[in-house]
């Protein structure tokens, strides 16, 4: 009989205990994976949102701009520098940007906003604002009109739940509102009638036109075609004022940005802020965004910069967000640590009981000629089998949830959603697909098992046969 066969049979001599121990490992692994997937998925989404809706992966800035982000720390972007940076193998575009704060007013409401001036034709390489134009939105009027229509009960309920939300594509609207394939032919015309928005993008020749965030449009009660008054301070303290007609409304994933987003052409921004030829930064779009490649690209580009200019990566530009996420990550790790500590005691309890119950048997096995190292190997295998059962079951059970949570992120509504938005987060919790964090859970469980195995092996090697046979 092979060692592993004996170990496997031993495992089932006390089925209940084996199952309880394996179940404790299973629950720890399952909850740790699901929790971690939510946590890491949320972080990744936040990072992606900030990168894609605002900072980009790399920016060319004045050295002082990171500490004092104002027009006075702007610069003139020379074509020669832009061309040299653009020639880097990982760089796909250099997009100049002029941004500053201002007050925006429409009707009787005013809001502090972030005015971003960029070239609309090149912008798509970074922030991709064109694809964020809203196609459907559930205004109070649209919600009321749709509920009065003959919608399927589930869709009607969800229309009420999602009132106030906006969608940039039909697919996510259908998914969120639970519209089935059979119903879509009848239901979608109703949405097109009541909830669609005639939304247009600007081009570089669109002087005096603006795109604004959906959050800002709701606050100002400003719609497409309305005029936005922008007032602020321009370059070197001159006053900045202008009128812009809203041409489109976009949904930016980060609520802080969505609530204050005004996008105009670069030429309009230079005119508004009286900063001809200037930029506050240039977003550098790259093809390989992997951390290592990103840093290497940054290093290469920094060697090309002079005159007080520097290349900053998204982590440097969003240090506050990263610190917040790191603190949250630590608290999550502590929670998981406590979870595993409880499990470790459970596993250790099983080992103690098993060692005590089988002491005489161990004594008999050694007395009839089984070497202690062989016995220790069999007992170690038993522990390993229990751990593997728990880990494999935990991983298997978590996978469908993780894949589902990735495909259909958890979306909060009502008070919880508002709370999230107040903290500057989109009320969505996506999950992260299996990655190295899956491997880490297995490593942690194996470490716990290793401690338990070490303990049992030590006890076996210290076994006194005479005392064990009397047990």
């Amino acid at each position, binding site marked *: 009989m092979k060692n592993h066969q004996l170990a496997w*049979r031993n495992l089932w001599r006390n089925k209940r205990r084996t199952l309880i121990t394996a179940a404790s490992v299973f629950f720890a692994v399952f909850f740790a994976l699901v929790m971690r997937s939510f946590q890491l998925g949320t972080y990744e989404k936040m990072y992606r949102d900030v990168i894609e809706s605002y900072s980009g992966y790399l920016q060319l800035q004045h050295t002082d701009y990171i500490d004092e982000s104002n027009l006075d720390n702007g610069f003139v972007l020379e074509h020669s520098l832009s061309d040299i940076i653009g020639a880097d193998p990982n760089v796909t575009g250099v997009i100049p940007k002029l941004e500053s704060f201002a007050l925006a007013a429409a009707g009787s409401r005013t809001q502090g906003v972030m005015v971003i001036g960029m070239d609309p034709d090149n912008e798509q390489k970074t922030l991709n604002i064109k694809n964020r134009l809203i196609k459907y939105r559930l205004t109070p009027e649209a919600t009321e009109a749709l509920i009065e229509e003959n919608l399927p009960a589930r869709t009607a309920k969800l229309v009420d739940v999602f009132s106030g939300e906006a969608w940039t594509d039909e697919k996510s609207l259908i998914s969120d509102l639970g519209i089935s394939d059979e119903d879509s032919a009848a239901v979608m015309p109703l949405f097109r009638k009541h909830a669609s928005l005639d939304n247009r993008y600007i081009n570089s020749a669109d002087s005096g036109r603006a795109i604004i965030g959906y959050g800002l449009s709701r606050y100002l009660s400003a719609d497409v075609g309305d005029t936005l008054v922008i007032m602020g301070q321009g370059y070197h303290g001159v006053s900045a004022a202008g009128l812009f007609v809203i041409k489109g409304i976009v949904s930016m994933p980060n609520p802080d940005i969505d609530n204050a987003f005004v996008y105009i052409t670069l030429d309009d921004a230079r005119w508004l802020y009286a900063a001809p030829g200037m930029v506050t930064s240039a977003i550098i779009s790259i093809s390989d965004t992997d951390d290592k490649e990103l840093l290497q690209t940054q290093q290469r580009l920094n060697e090309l910069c002079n005159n007080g200019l520097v290349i900053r990566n998204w982590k440097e530009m969003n240090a506050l967000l990263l610190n917040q996420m790191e603190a949250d990550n630590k608290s999550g790790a502590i929670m998981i640590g406590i979870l595993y500590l409880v499990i470790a005691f459970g596993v250790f309890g099983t080992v103690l009981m098993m060692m005590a119950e089988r002491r005489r*048997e161990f004594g*008999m096995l*050694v007395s*009839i000629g*089984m070497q202690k190292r062989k016995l220790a190997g069999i007992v170690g295998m038993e522990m390993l089998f229990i751990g593997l059962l728990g880990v494999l079951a935990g991983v298997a059970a978590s996978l469908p949830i993780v894949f589902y949570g990735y495909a259909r992120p958890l979306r909060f509504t009502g008070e919880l959603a508002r709370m999230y938005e107040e903290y500057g987060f989109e009320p969505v919790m996506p999950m992260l697909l299996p990655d190295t964090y899956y491997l880490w859970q297995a490593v942690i469980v194996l470490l716990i098992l290793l401690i338990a195995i070490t303990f049992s092996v030590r006890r076996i090697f210290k076994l006194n*046969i005479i005392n064990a046979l009397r047990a």
Partner: protein
Amino acid sequence: MKVVEINDVFKTYHDTAVEVKAVNGVTLSFDKGDFAVIVGPSGSGKTTLLNLIGGLDQPTAGEIIVAGHRLSELKPSELIDFRMEHVGFVFQSYNLIPVLTASENVGFIMSLQKWPKEKRMARTGELLEAVGLSERHNSRPSQLSGGQQQRVAVARALAPRPQFILADEPTANLDTKSAETLLDIMEKLNREEEMTFIFSTHDVRVMKRARRVITLEDGKVVSDERTNHNS
């Protein structure tokens, strides 16, 4: 031919500042084919002497030579191999491996010794037949009676053809019929395989069958008698 030689052996335990001489200067030897019992009151040192002969314990003084091996010269791991090769153990409470069937239990030591499968199977079948359990070869210990379990334990001890069998109170947990059956089998194996059996016992049924009775008192041999019992 001498299988076991015990020369002036002492075993002293120190329990809570009291010195207990469990074996106190024993000199004995056992020949091949002996069917010997060690008797004596509780605490006389029977089990301790058996443990010393089996290499489960080391004497405080004196020398034990088994099949040419001086046990005191063997390292712990060598002692384990020595037991596997030369000693068969039969315990009072059977001590079978609960997750193995009767035939797997019998073949267990042979598998530790890496016997070829065919040879192992043949020997297992032969021994199960000898102990009258051929039909229960696939039963787990929990499915066997006490007497049947002890017969499997005897078959296991005999399987690798050791130099001798040490049996510590083998009939203590058995009813009369089971004990008689077991002793019949042991006598038969002793006769047919010329296997040496050394028992420690209180059981009169065992003493009646023995051809040599060694009496211990306070760790000393007080008598060593050959009897006329013919097997």
